């Protein structure tokens, strides 16, 4: 594919230029330092909830209910995590089974969603055809309808399709989410038409153009969409649709730790540890993915 090598050369040239030319209004080192400090202070403020969550997990029980409450832990302990692992070792269904369920739903769900959604976003972003305007509008406006009232019709649909008590009851509705699609669509609009035109002249079909040119160019958006869908599938307990214990997810299992009352004092420490575990997975994925976004600089130098 000559167009791809052309594309790569073009991008490489642009990258070289980027590093060699300094912008006129570039800030001094001191300015950067100041900016960094301001941002870190702000970051600390925003990170407050996370700091609280982690400290809470490290507190012994007497400190958790201390009055007046303290943000930072005084005598950190890993007891909460030890208790959690003891519980996990004695579950009705082995923990590995819950983990498998979660991984299946998250992996199939996110990859499937990104593929189908990006394949729908590309024609809508770059072409005009009968119905394109209408579908775009539907996609944007579907983001604005409150989910509480669509819950009942959705349940009826899923049960009529005989999907109750299966992974697909969680995965399929996620395929229909439009947030990631809308994000990718917005980024695809910025790809120059000439690039796609050139690929078509070279004889590439639309599917090929999508996979080899369009999708790599909107990598930052695709990765962001991936993180969104990953996060929402990971925390989805599926308690409305899945009744068989061995099909349930990690999120569901951990949410059950609180017991029936949901405010159990005895399990409060375990629960705090569980919420850290639930949080750590998507944040790690986010960190890895985000490192990737920044190193791609996808659309730079691709504008007309």
């Amino acid at each position, binding site marked *: 594919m000559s167009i791809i090598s052309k594309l790569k050369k073009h991008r490489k040239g642009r990258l070289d230029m980027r590093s060699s030319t300094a912008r006129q209004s570039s800030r001094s080192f001191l300015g950067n330092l100041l900016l960094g400090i301001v941002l870190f202070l702000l970051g600390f403020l925003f990170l407050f909830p996370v700091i609280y969550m982690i400290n809470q997990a490290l507190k012994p029980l007497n400190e958790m209910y201390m009055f*007046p409450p303290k943000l930072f832990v005084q005598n950190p302990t890993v007891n909460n995590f030890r208790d959690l692992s003891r519980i996990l070792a004695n579950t009705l269904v082995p923990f590995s089974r819950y983990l498998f369920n979660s991984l299946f739903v998250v992996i199939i769900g996110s990859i499937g969603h990104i593929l189908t959604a990006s*394949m729908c976003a590309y024609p809508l972003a770059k072409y005009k055809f009968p119905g394109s305007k209408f579908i775009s509008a539907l996609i944007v*406006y579907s983001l604005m309808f409150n989910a509480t009232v669509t819950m009942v019709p959705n349940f009826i649909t899923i049960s009529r399709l005989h999907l109750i008590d299966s992974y697909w009851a969680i995965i399929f509705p996620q395929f229909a989410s439009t947030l990631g699609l809308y994000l990718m669509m917005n980024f695809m609009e910025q790809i120059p038409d000439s690039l796609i035109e050139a690929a078509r002249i070279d004889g590439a079909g639309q599917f090929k153009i999508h996979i080899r040119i369009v999708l790599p160019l909107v990598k930052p958006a695709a990765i962001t969409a991936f993180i969104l869908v990953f996060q929402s599938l990971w925390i989805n307990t599926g308690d409305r649709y899945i009744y068989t214990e061995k099909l349930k997810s990690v999120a569901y299992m951990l949410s059950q730790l609180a017991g029936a009352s949901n405010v159990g004092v005895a399990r409060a420490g375990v629960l705090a540890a569980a919420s850290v575990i639930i949080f750590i997975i998507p944040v790690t994925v986010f960190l890895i993915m985000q490192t990737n976004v920044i190193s791609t600089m996808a659309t730079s130098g691709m504008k007309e």
Partner: protein
Amino acid sequence: MRKLKITLREMKRNRVLYLMMLPFLIFFFTFAVYPVLQAIYYSFTDYNILEAPNFIGLENYRKLFLEDTIFIKAIQNTFIIAVFVGPLGYILSYLLAWMINELPHWLGTILTVIFYAPSMAGNSIMIFALIFSNDSTGYLNGILLKYGFISERILWLSDSSYILPVVILVSVWMSLGVGFLSFVAGIKGVDEAQYEAAAIDGIRNRWQELWYVTLPNMKPQLLFGAVMSITNALSVGGVADALVGFPSPNYASHTIVNHLNDYGLIRMEMGRASAIAVILFFIMILCNLLFRKFLSKVGT
């Protein structure tokens, strides 16, 4: 007739594109469009989820606007919250993304994660209950008392004149979401050559650069961020629930979404809840259209 023929020919010419869209659209229509249409139908019915819906025309809407004074209060509260949370959250997201872009890449990555991480931490909202606690030992009361700004503790979460500001503050605090991520990615995509060209054309400072180069180049992301901001700002409800409980004292922070959940999840009047959802839907569309008008002026 001729028009139809042209349309059909166009459709045939683009059949590959339709084929590409098909897998998504099947799921989209089944799990997103159909339920919405169904909910719109429910809004004209008396529906308690257990019995079949019973068509009653515009009765739900009439009751909401003419008899339900709490709903009117909810609309007012929602607008007050949205007017602050929407623009503040939007501008904050943008400014942070812009500043992050000025830093070296590795530092930017860490900061992006720091700013977005709270959105991933589940029920972390409890920290705000500690900060704004009514007790004199709550963080805010404690600090204000210690340094003598106040002589008596303030009932942040019970005094109806403080509830709304507290809810607004916490909502802004938590508003860095997907809009922020799209800004971070979008700013990176602005072509460096444009800045060079702009410098030659006489752009003097960063602010001019922002208005004439960066912003116009990011219109798709700006629009995306705005749709997110508008939707989130008008859907505030969970924050108040978690902080002051439901219903809020004197309905001080009762929003449209609170009202909707009240009818949909507690009173099991799905018809009325659907009518509220439809009204909220149209408010959001209206705000969205207004923003599009504004966006067309950026960079001029």
